[in-house]
């Protein structure tokens, strides 16, 4: 459990910090001013409670000295100040409790001050506790005496805490439902959120931006406050920067925005604004008008651009690609579950709340399936999962022998057709990105990995080196090892009409047994590869959209029944 702080630091331990709740309590007037603050910490690596404790006590000490309000608490400044430096530390291990019980426990703990009617005079100036909720998850609860609460800059205290931890800290949406939601003053909470957004030092978007900046400017290290143009940036590099941000983060920032926000920090805020805006528009207006839920398409490969374009014309569409920089940081990149955790995080950064719809081709379909499972486990609604030509790896392994040889030859032929369709599209302006030099590189890489697929004669070959630098290799290796678990919810398998012999010829690709009635199968023109190429892509996009629409209608009907 205990990790030396220096070891933890060199290992790059990270804390994800969230101030999940800051609310007025009900009860008497004094306790209404009590401000319990809950901080949710996700620790990569073991939790070092000692370190967290000493970091927090440093902050608490500064607070009680700075606020000078302890004197007013009981009229005895000196003794109270001394006490303030030694605020009793509580540590509760809730890891044995089921999730729901742990949350109830925390709620009860938070409410003690307000609900038990302790007179304000007798409340301790502040108290805090570390609640261990998981191996790498803990919550810090902090409550302040009303007299101190007025003088305390909560944001500053959190920032100080983060600094004292000596860890790299990033803000993230904490999983799980917020505490004491009914008691929140929504306006104040929003204001607190907005405040956090600007004052907490670093987050994952910022990290990603820094990596992009460093690559574009070919310089290291880039700090959050460095000016793009002072680092040697010019207009062409600015264009490249924006192109890469769009490719990696899915947000199209105007070129001119770099003049107004020429730092990573400024750009991070801009990104939030852009994402926030799209969330607000979609969440508020669009969802009510058309009943459309956002579709998250996994697999950011440029060859999917025609499909992405068509789908984005039909509905709110997010494309999520896997990046080596992210995969390399995962605990276990060879585990599809672990990759899916990262996808869940990315999705919830874009849309914190469901309902969600997910789709992916081949191994990305498996990733979509596992991601949906995890989102459901977090209490989120997943309306539909679309798997395009995705085989159940467990069932597939049971198929072997001479059929594989024929299947291999057929797949090769199909790949040739794909390449032919692909080359034809090079002249079309709709697929102009393919002309790009970088795309040809990506295509070469993809071909390479596809050829590896063929050599192995499996949909998902197990590779000797999943850290080879190609995210597809990592995904395929993880997919080969993946055992799909039971899942309750709509799944549609989209099959190509031109199928290979062997397992590829099995219509359900091994899913019926696991998914039962939840599985729907829909066929579309083309082979394994050409279904998302011209001239098949229009048909595919419309089939996908109509599957999603049906699922949306079902959800709407189910909701209406519940209301009645």
């Amino acid at each position: 459990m205990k990790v030396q702080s220096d070891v933890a630091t060199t290992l790059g331990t990270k804390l994800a910090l969230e101030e999940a709740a800051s609310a007025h309590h009900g009860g008497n007037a004094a306790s209404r001013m009590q401000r319990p603050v809950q901080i949710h910490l996700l620790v990569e690596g073991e939790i070092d409670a000692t370190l967290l404790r000493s970091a927090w006590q440093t902050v608490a000490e500064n607070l009680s000295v700075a606020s000078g309000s302890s004197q007013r608490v009981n009229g005895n400044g000196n003794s109270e100040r001394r006490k303030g430096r030694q605020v009793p530390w509580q540590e509760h291990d809730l890891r044995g409790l089921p999730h729901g019980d742990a949350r109830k426990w925390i709620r009860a703990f938070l409410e003690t001050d307000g609900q038990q009617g302790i007179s304000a005079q007798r409340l301790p100036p502040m108290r805090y506790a570390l609640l261990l909720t998981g191996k790498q998850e803990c919550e810090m609860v902090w409550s302040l005496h009303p007299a101190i609460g007025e003088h305390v800059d909560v944001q500053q205290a959190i920032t100080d805490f983060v600094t004292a931890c000596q860890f790299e800290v990033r803000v993230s949406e904490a999983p799980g439902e917020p505490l004491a939601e009914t008691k929140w003053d929504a306006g104040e909470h929003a204001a607190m959120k907005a405040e956090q957004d600007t004052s907490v030092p670093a987050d994952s978007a910022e990290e990603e931006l820094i990596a992009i900046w460093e690559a574009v400017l070919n310089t290291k290290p880039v700090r959050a406050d460095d000016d793009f143009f002072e680092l040697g940036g010019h207009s062409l590099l600015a264009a490249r920067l924006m192109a890469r941000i769009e490719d990696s983060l899915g947000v199209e920032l105007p070129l001119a925005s770099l003049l107004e926000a020429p730092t990573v920090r400024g750009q991070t805020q801009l990104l939030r604004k852009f994402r926030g805006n799209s969330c607000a528009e979609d969440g508020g207006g669009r969802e009510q008008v058309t009943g459309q839920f956002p579709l998250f398409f996994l697999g950011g490969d440029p060859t999917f651009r025609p499909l992405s374009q068509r789908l984005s014309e039909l509905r709110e569409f997010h494309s999520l690609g896997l990046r080596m920089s992210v995969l390399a940081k995962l605990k276990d990149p060879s585990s599809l579950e672990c990759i899916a955790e990262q996808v869940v995080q990315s999705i919830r950064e874009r849309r914190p709340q469901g309902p969600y719809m997910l789709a992916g081709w081949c191994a990305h379909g498996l990733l979509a399936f596992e991601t949906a499972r995890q989102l459901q486990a977090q209490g989120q609604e997943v309306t539909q999962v679309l798997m395009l030509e995705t085989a159940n790896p467990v069932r597939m392994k049971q198929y072997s022998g001479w059929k594989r040889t024929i299947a291999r030859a057929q797949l090769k032929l199909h790949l040739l057709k794909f390449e032919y369709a692909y080359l034809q599209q090079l002249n079309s302006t709709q697929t102009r990105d393919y002309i790009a030099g970088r795309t040809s590189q990506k295509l070469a890489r993809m071909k390479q990995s596809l050829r590896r697929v063929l050599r192995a004669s499996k949909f998902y070959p197990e590779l000797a080196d999943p850290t080879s630098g190609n995210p597809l290799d990592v995904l395929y290796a993880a997919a080969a090892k993946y055992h799909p678990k039971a899942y309750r919810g709509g799944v549609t398998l989209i099959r190509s009409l031109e199928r290979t012999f062997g397992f590829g010829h099995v219509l359900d690709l091994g899913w019926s047994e696991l998914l039962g009635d939840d599985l729907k199968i829909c066929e579309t023109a083309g082979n394994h590869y050409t279904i998302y190429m011209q001239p098949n892509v229009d048909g595919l996009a419309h089939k996908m959209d109509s599957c999603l629409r049906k699922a949306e209608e079902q959800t709407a009907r189910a909701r209406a029944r519940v209301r009645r």
Partner: protein
Amino acid sequence: MVASFAWSPIATVPVVAESELHVWRASLDWSGAILSRLENTLTTQEKKRAERFLVPHARDRFVVARGILRELLGAYLGLDAAKVMLSYGPRGKPFLSAEHNSRICFSVSHSREMGLFVFTSGQEVGVDIEQIKASFRGMEIASHFFSEEEMAGLAKLAPKLAEEAFFGCWTRKEAYVKARGQGLSIPLRSFTVSFTEREQLVPDEEGMLWSCYALEPAAGFTGAVVAAGQNWKLKYLEWTAGPQ
């Protein structure tokens, strides 16, 4: 065509006639006495800005480019370079302060050690220069920022030629948005330039025509200048350090 790119080094700065477009090129790699001479013409603010550059050469090149601009403007105005007063538009485009009561419009661009400075009398102008680097992979940028027609044009070229043509296209587009004075706030995809024509007219959204001329500043560089209106007489001039 090559003959038109005879950059004439001259000692005295000519007067800009109404229909003339003066294009100056200059090397920015100066040190010692010339660097300090140019640096002395800068305002405190400009010097501060120079000190903020974190990349080697960037600081000196900024100082030299700004110093040369001041010397040229000083020569056009008949003033000491240090007495030239500059103001900035909302998008950061510098222009001569109103106190000078001058019609001179100018634009500056530099890439590595080469700088281009263009001047007109009373008409908006923009210039851009880029070093041609085959390894730059400009297509990544083109796919995001070029119009459909431009991409279609590039697609017809062999990859190597397309990389070169990319720079020709980019400099024309950037010179255009600089001339418009709105920096990069005009979406680059919203207008189309021809990267094969050395001279062309680009209409803006109100139908006004802008003249665009391709430039060959030096081997390995390409550039373009755009000015409002038509029938410009271009003069290619070379800035030399002159007496020290």
